């Protein structure tokens, strides 16, 4: 039976996040003055079968889902 595994991928803290930067600017223009930093990443929800879904998810991150040069990630069994 399928297990739901959630992978969150975020831009590394030291790398530029143009998307977060643009959204922060826009929210400030809309008058949200209490807003500080904004960072935007991905939430990837995987349904995985078999006995080691989390291990599988990590493998998927290494092979395809994450670019370790610019992104950090976490895996949680839903």
């Amino acid at each position, binding site marked *: 039976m399928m297990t739901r595994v959630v992978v969150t991928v975020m831009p590394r803290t030291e790398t530029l996040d*143009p998307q977060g930067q*643009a959204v922060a600017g826009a929210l400030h*223009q809309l008058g949200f003055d209490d807003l500080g930093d904004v960072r935007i990443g991905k939430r990837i929800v995987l349904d995985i079968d078999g006995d080691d879904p989390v291990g599988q998810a990590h493998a998927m991150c290494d092979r395809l889902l994450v670019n370790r040069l610019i992104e950090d990630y976490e895996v949680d069994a839903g």
Partner: protein
Amino acid sequence: MTIERPTVAVVKFPGSLDHDSAARAATQAGADATLVHHKDDTLPAGTAAVVLPGGFSYGDHLRCGAIASRAPIMQAVIRFAADGGRVLGICNGFQILCEAGLLPGVLRPNQRLGFICRQVTLEVDDATTDWTGTHTAGTNLSIPIKNHDGAWFGDPADGRVVFRYDESNPTGSRERIAGIANHEGNVLGMMPHPECACDPLVGSDDGRVLFDALVGAVRVGAA
């Protein structure tokens, strides 16, 4: 006697790219084209029609057109449209109009997930708006697309379908929709770029009809 050149306002957002070409096309059609800054909150006095040009406003971040649709100038554009003023949104301008709620639906990433730049054949569908001049339904126009998020999604019954792609439906739009207007017909959004089809040297001049329509627009509020 001097013929009056109606003012066509071309709105420039950060990341707008096709505003100069759109202004050039409008001028060629007999308009007095003025660029309007996104931070302004009013349109130039006597504006007869508005163009939201193509581009990557705000880098297409978050959702294409989303951030621009909340810019100060858009309140003025929304009022202008509500008064029946003619508004043309091209590509990113179309995306902005959808995000602003002036047009139904939303534009999603192309089915093939990638940018497509290609000359395409459009079919005029609903020929009863002013946008297609004397063209009859079924007329084919050759106009290029160049977009990454050009797949229209929504309920076609919420507007009037002015243009469809030919069978190839390059973006994967619902019902091959390439351009859709509101029920009133004064607001049109289209993914193809008519401003890049106003000169046979550049590939085609089938796009001129849309700028003629802008210039033909009756000045809003003028008796």
